[in-house]
């Protein structure tokens, strides 16, 4: 079984995330970049299957700037067997459509039985890339899985929707995405970090993948930001220390604001 895990590098959510006001793109210089936590969980799903099924091959794949190398190396240190980095200046500011097209082309060139992604990234947060990739590849998708059960020829799980839960399955090859209901990822150990340096690491440009943006994206709609405005930050109001009467004072505050 060959499992490819899609990992996206995102600004660390513990820092303040900023947008460039003219392009509306994430200001990546403004914050530390890390592999999205949800994608580490996706990698954990693949690695725990590999632990139980020797002979499983796990590949981490990312599209992004040069800085993504660090995140892919971490994936290798955690236990992935090889990495693929889609790197091309034409992809700067890519929307979900371009991203999915580039990832799908890279997947086709790599070959796979199962693709595992996060349900939504913590920066763009669109939650659409995995299903877009599946449509490009003409495969079934199951997104937002809260549990995953992989067998030799199919994948099954429970999918959370706003209204309830669906039990679903699909034959392999397929594309799935998982939620943070799945376990946290393991940490890389020393041996993993050392061996990561020797593992195969492929860098592919759009040309290598057979994509010429001027041809591939002719007539395809592209999402563009017209304007990004920062809201004024919230400021602190009244703060009191409870000296035995704070519950009553809070009730008075709520009454004054017509909130009760």
């Amino acid at each position, binding site marked *: 079984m060959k499992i490819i895990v899609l990992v996206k590098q995102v600004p660390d959510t513990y820092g303040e995330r900023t947008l460039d006001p003219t392009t509306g793109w994430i200001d990546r210089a403004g914050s530390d970049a890390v592999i999205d936590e949800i994608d580490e969980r996706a990698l954990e799903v693949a690695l725990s299957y590999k632990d139980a099924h020797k002979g499983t091959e796990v590949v981490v794949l990312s599209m992004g700037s040069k800085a993504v190398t660090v995140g892919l190396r971490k994936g290798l240190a955690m236990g992935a067997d090889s990495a693929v980095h889609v790197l091309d200046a034409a992809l700067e500011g890519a929307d*979900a*459509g371009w991203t999915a097209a580039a990832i799908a082309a890279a997947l086709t060139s790599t070959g796979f039985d199962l693709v595992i992604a996060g349900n939504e990234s913590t920066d763009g947060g669109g939650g659409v890339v995995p299903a877009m990739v599946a449509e490009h590849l003409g495969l079934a998708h199951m997104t937002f899985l809260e549990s995953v059960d992989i067998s030799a020829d199919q994948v099954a799980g429970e999918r959370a929707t706003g209204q309830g839960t*669906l*039990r679903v399955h699909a034959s392999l090859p397929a594309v799935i995405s998982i939620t943070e209901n799945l376990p946290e990822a393991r940490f890389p150990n020393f041996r993993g970090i050392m061996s990561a340096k020797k593992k195969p690491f492929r860098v592919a440009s759009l040309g290598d993948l057979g994509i010429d943006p001027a041809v591939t994206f002719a*007539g395809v*709609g592209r999402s563009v930001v017209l304007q990004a405005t920062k809201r004024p930050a919230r400021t602190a109001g009244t703060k009191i220390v409870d000296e035995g009467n704070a519950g009553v004072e*809070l*009730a008075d505050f709520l009454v004054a604001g017509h909130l009760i």
Partner: protein
Amino acid sequence: MSNILALIEVSSNGDLRDSTSSLLAAAARIGSPVAVVVTTPGAGSALVERLGNLGAAQVFLAEIDQGGTLLVAPQVDALAAAVSTLAPGAILTVNSVEGRDVAARLGVRIGAGLVIDAVNLRSEGLTIVATHSVFGGAYTVESTVQGGPMIVTVREGVIEGAADAAVPVVTTVSLTSDASNSAVIDEVIDVVVASTRPGLRGATRVVSGGRGLGSQEKFSLVDQLADALGAAVGASRAAVDAGFVAQACQVGQTGVTVSPQLYVALGISGAIQHRAGMQTAKTIVAINKDADAPIFDIADFGIVGDVFTVVPQLIAAIESRGKK
């Protein structure tokens, strides 16, 4: 006015979902609303009058037998069929799990650009402009699609008002989806809402509890205050991870985003990822033992104190006012 397709979500027993009215209202802001519905053969006509009352000028019924068994493929096929006959100016879905899946697959199929999680829509000449609220409301972003068709996923319940009622023109088509590239639905376990409390999404008042509540039993303090205020119950991720409360209650970056009139945070430190889900609330109240907790930086009324003494007193004060 150009046709605006709106994919209507239908529950497993064939009812219109609550999101219908707001999605048709969104469509009416930018054109003439066309409700696109997947139904089992013959079942759709029962929905037409209600869709008209909610503002659909046209109803496009796609009769597909596999609606309950194939994941999302019938909805994608229905919209693709409607796109080819009605030449729409834009296509709208709800920004739900299902709505985003449909938007994603349809977008690739017809070469459309995707605008995700819009909180408002307007026309500027021939351009449709969407507004988003990103990073928990820290930025307001306007976007559009250039060079091809436009698909918009609309945040649930934020577009208020209703479209004018109409007597819809009905088109019925019958379709069969390709089962070979779709996942299969084995079972639908629709959540039974046992609670009489308001739902979290779209609630006007929310009371949330964090790790500071200490245990699942003691988390009932949050429920009690929520009931006294007629509020929905929320939680931090730490409270969810500790098993105090169901994951559906999680507020924050990877949980639900709320924007109520009143948000009360009990025993929540105010991590940046939590704030991302609640900082656009009109009024924020926080009770925390730690005077330096970051939640106080954004609270309109903060109490440095123990939730187990302050909250019972608050509930008593609310109840005694109610009696007067």
